[in-house]
């Protein structure tokens, strides 16, 4: 009995020893940078860049408010708020567009015979192998004034002057929807793949119309996949940097660009760090919502 106890204890100690590399990695590579970001957000900004090691709430204050340089009056930072709003709006729009396009796509793939299915999934994942920058330039080629869409429309005589898509929110939306579509299709596919198609017959048999079968049977059952897709698209959309930078031009910024601005030209590292932390919190909250929703709906995991 005693010996066994000792054995167990030494086994436990060995376990800790063996997991040291993983723990070190977690502490220094994962938590470390986050802690630095959190720390910088409560320091004072340096003269040109960097930080001064003095505690200050200014970084966090300036996330939402601005102080007039002359009379020191405090007001809401309209510019920041409009950037937040645009980011959230564009991310929600991206999520909805990818869902509307992704659901039929995922359904199509999941209903193919098993042999062809792998091929379709492969096509969906191909864009992941290409650099994001190059994919974004490809979208630029499609939507710019002399691009494919405008040229084709003008040649067809449908429009006389090119439609300005480039450097608008629409261009950012198109670009992000294209970039994040696979992140919607894959979890939807996984959910539809597990879906028991005989339930559709049961629905029809019990007097449900096509629409009622979709809303009352299919969507509730694949809900975990829908939520996963929403989170997987919404989160990176919110922090998107390259796509809004290239397709939105300088003025249609999103949070990601705004954060970059603070570390670059803005020379306000504490504000940038505070904004990053806000973004991280939004992501964490989304994750919690997702985990709650999926564990409640799908007790089998």
């Amino acid at each position, binding site marked *: 009995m005693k010996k066994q106890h000792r054995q167990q204890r030494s086994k436990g100690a060995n376990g800790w020893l063996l997991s040291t590399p993983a723990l070190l990695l977690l502490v220094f590579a994962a938590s470390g940078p986050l802690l630095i970001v959190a720390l910088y957000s409560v320091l004072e900004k340096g003269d040109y860049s960097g930080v001064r090691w003095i505690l200050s709430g200014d970084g966090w204050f300036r996330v939402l408010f601005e102080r007039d340089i002359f009379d020191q009056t405090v007001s809401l930072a309209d510019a920041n708020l409009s950037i937040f709003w645009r980011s959230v709006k564009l991310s929600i729009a991206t999520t909805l567009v990818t869902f509307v396009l992704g659901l039929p796509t995922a359904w199509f793939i999941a209903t193919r015979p098993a042999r062809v299915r792998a091929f379709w999934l492969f096509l969906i994942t191909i864009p992941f192998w290409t650099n994001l920058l190059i994919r974004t330039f490809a979208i630029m080629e499609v939507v710019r004034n002399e691009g494919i869409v405008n040229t084709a429309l003008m040649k067809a005589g449908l429009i006389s002057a090119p439609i300005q898509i480039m450097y608008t929110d629409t261009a950012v939306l198109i670009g992000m929807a294209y970039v994040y579509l696979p992140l919607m299709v894959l979890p939807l596919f996984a959910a539809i793949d597990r879906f028991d198609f005989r339930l559709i017959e049961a629905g*029809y048999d019990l007097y449900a119309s096509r629409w009622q079968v979709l809303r009352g049977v299919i969507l509730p059952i694949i809900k975990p996949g829908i939520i996963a897709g929403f989170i997987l698209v919404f989160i990176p959309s919110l922090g998107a940097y390259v796509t809004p930078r290239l397709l939105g031009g300088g003025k249609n910024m999103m949070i990601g660009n705004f954060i970059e601005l603070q570390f670059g030209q803005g020379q306000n590292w504490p504000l940038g760090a505070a904004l990053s932390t806000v973004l991280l919190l939004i992501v964490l909250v989304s994750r919690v919502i997702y985990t709650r929703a999926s564990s409640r709906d799908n007790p089998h995991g």
Partner: protein
Amino acid sequence: MQGDGQLNSTIAVDARNVGKIYGNGNSAVAALGDVSISIQQGEFFTLLGPSGCGKTTLLRCIAGFETPTSGTIHLSGTDITHTPPNERPVNTVFQSYALFPHLTVAQNVGFGLKMLGKPAGDVAKAVARVLALVKLETFADRLPQQLSGGQQQRVALARALAPEPEVLLLDEPLSALDLKLRKEMQSELKRLQTETGITFIFVTHDQEEALTMSNRIGVMSQGALLQVGTPHEIYEHPVNRFVADFIGETNFLEGHINGAGVRLGTGDLLEVPLEGPLEVPLDGQLGAVTLAIRPEQIRLAAAVTGIAATITDATYMGTDTHYTLGLSDGSHIVARVQSNSAGTYGVGEAVGLSIDAKAVQVLKA
């Protein structure tokens, strides 16, 4: 009893010349070939046959999940051949139950009524009534995965019964249950059918299930309906070798028609009645026929009397003993004898067997 194809108010389902072909050209497969059947209102009708015989295809045509390639299906006099399933007053109990996993038992059972646009109060009342019918009142708020197989089966049944369909279709609903539960559900189904008065069309490959539950049975094979009749008719008077073989155990003996009876290969003459709906033409006096003889219609006695035979195997089965007998022409037949009757015989013993000639069925050779 036999449906004659005439449309009248007592016929629930009338399928006429229904055919179903999958694929086209050279790869076309006929799942159903020209099946006609009339199912009476309030009847417990069973479609019986081995897997792949087309019974499920016929059921799916009635449910509306498949459209027949040819022929028509009438429901209470209305042509429903091309009516979508959600507009047919017909409900199905699926082999896999197909319960909605995201809905509680009560929501599952109420689904059909809700889709029909019934007010919530009426739905709740109907759900309570049907759940009481299948004795699941206390499970209303459970999810399907929290129930046992037998309970899920009852929910599936309740869900299909709740909208009070004109016809209830059951696609091998008992095949996933263990033997004891299956026996229980058989009598349960029979009770429900009697209580509700709804026409049941039951598909199974289990001949015992078919015999014990049905008012009438339709035996199917390779897309064709071979025989329709009461369990008694099907068992006692199978129209051909397939039906005789599929329903219960049967011995087949070859013979020739000879005057008033059939002469067996052994030379013995069996005075079987050559009348009734026989499959064989009786004009040729020496026509070759096959006799279908049930094991329980054979009696054994000490040698000398009856047809001479030798016991090659004896299996004690409790109430019965099964004897395998070798006849003088080399053929073998099985006899089932009550264990406590006259005597017991050992392997190798010579016996004389007598056959209840009136119960013998004469079939095409």
